[in-house]
């Protein structure tokens, strides 16, 4: 349960950062918070207390005590995606700074309606 709450909190913090912080870097960190939260959520879905890895490494393992392997696979995929997103975001921030000489999102408003 604590994992769910933790993950949701992480998402909430991420959203808060994205919503309130005006520094580009902080926004990116916020995004990362969100994705970390989501990843944690995924993992916790498949998590079983005192479970084992979902590998029949030795005999006698009860499949019911194994953690669900699929969320882990999903998480891996998600992490990869997040990483690429992060890279792209940072690249954008660099370019933005080059154009605007600022990292304040409030000042980056050349495009409006």
């Amino acid at each position, binding site marked *: 349960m604590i994992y769910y709450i933790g993950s949701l909190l992480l998402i909430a913090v991420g959203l808060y950062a994205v919503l309130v912080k005006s520094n580009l870097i902080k*926004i990116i960190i916020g995004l990362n918070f969100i994705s970390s939260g*989501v990843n944690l959520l995924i993992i916790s879905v498949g998590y079983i207390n005192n479970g084992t890895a979902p590998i029949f490494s030795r005999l006698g393992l009860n499949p019911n005590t194994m953690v669900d392997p699929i969320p882990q696979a999903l998480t891996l995929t998600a992490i990869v995606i997040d990483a690429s997103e992060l890279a792209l975001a940072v690249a954008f921030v660099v370019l933005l700074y080059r154009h*605007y000489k600022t990292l304040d999102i409030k000042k980056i408003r*050349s*495009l409006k309606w």
Partner: protein
Amino acid sequence: MVGGAHPILLIAVPLFFVFLIVFFSSFFKGIVKYLPIIAFGINLIVIYQLIPEVLGKGMVISTTAGFKPPLAIDIVVDRLSLILAAIGSVLGFLVAIYNVSYIDEEPQERYYALFTLLVTGIIWMVVTGDIFNLFVAFEVTSIAAFGLVGFHRDQGAVEAGFKYLVMGSIGGGMLLVGIIMLYAATGTLNMVDLAQKSVHLTFGQKFLAYSMIFIGLGIEGALFPLNAWLPDAHPAAPSSVSAILSGIMTTAAIYALYRLTNLMFDYKQIYTILLFFGLLTLIFGEVSAYFQQDIKRMLAYSTIGQTGLFFFAFALDSANGFQGSIMQIINHSVSKALLFLVTGGMILRIGSRKIEDFAGLGRKMKFSSFFLAIGAFSLMGLPPFFGFWSKLKIIFAALQNPNFFMVASVVIILLMSVVEGAYFFKLLQNMYFGKPAENLQISEAPAGILISFTILGLILIFISVYPTPIINLTHQVANDLMSKSYINIALRLGGL
């Protein structure tokens, strides 16, 4: 599977070409720009092969990795997917031709790689039968799109790209949360399986997941008020990309929403909420478009409006509504892509995106202007163009059970159509009869651009004057959606 028509090829071939592009770029750069054409050419062949089977049996399923569903990720092409995949491939193919003349900015290989990835992701999103796979496709599309929006790397492009990235990432995260919720509740990721297992869930549970998915896909699908990235991103991107973004990417996200809503969240309340979203999107899109000075921004807002329209039609939750919605999707994809491609060529020639600078282009760029007019007419829904038939269908569907709310909605839709007419006619009038700037010396668009939008325009004219096959097809699709035959056929064909 059967007859050599492998839906998996729709994804596999272009993905392979993405690698090929990156591979060739280091030593054989000249060939790079032609590779997407080949990729989507092959895709078109695959689609052509798929057509008889899909139309005959209603669905083609192909599984991966040797597992049986629901464990395996399967690729499912039913009639609706086929329509969208076909549009995606056609647009991909045409825009790939377009690119040849259009893109001269470096780094070209990255552009082509990302472009191929973008279209692939879209097609992937449409044909996948697995909900997590949907997310992956979604993210592939998004990341490719982020990159492409920022491709010009000037001030506007970077800003738009960054905004899009932030919103898209949040959307992706929310979508994933929704998917995980579903998984946690049912323990499966296969859509058919999910549809069957989720019957036992309560509405509250479903709705929680649905709202997360809705936010994720709604951001990508440009539903108000989640669409604020769109009017920035579409103008900032190269026109070829705008065509894809507007023409098929938002549509693909909406498709995913359709599919999931139809399969798992088939509740009256949800449809009612969606109605409001559709209407709001329509209103804000069209009204904003009216005030734009920048042609691509105008078209972008118009995309929002169109999205609202076909989303509204979908939310009517009736066979006629579905049919109208899908017809409108077809109309929108073709016409809006056409408009973006044409304006891209024009912007290339005159070097400005201001509508007043388009004055007098009707004389200088005859073909471009002609197809711009055709696209605009079709979007406005003037007969005899295809948009007329789809709008007719939507309105008829909306008034199937006329009550006050429906009549009011129809009035709003019609009013917004008037607004749409207002800005398009302003554009056309300026283009054809405006006084051109002094010594405006421009020629017709380059060959690649000309070829691509001419083909697209001819397609539009063809479906306009001979809409019967599409009307019949969409009728079938609508019936499929109504009867949820996706599940039945998938079960019969071993999609589970």
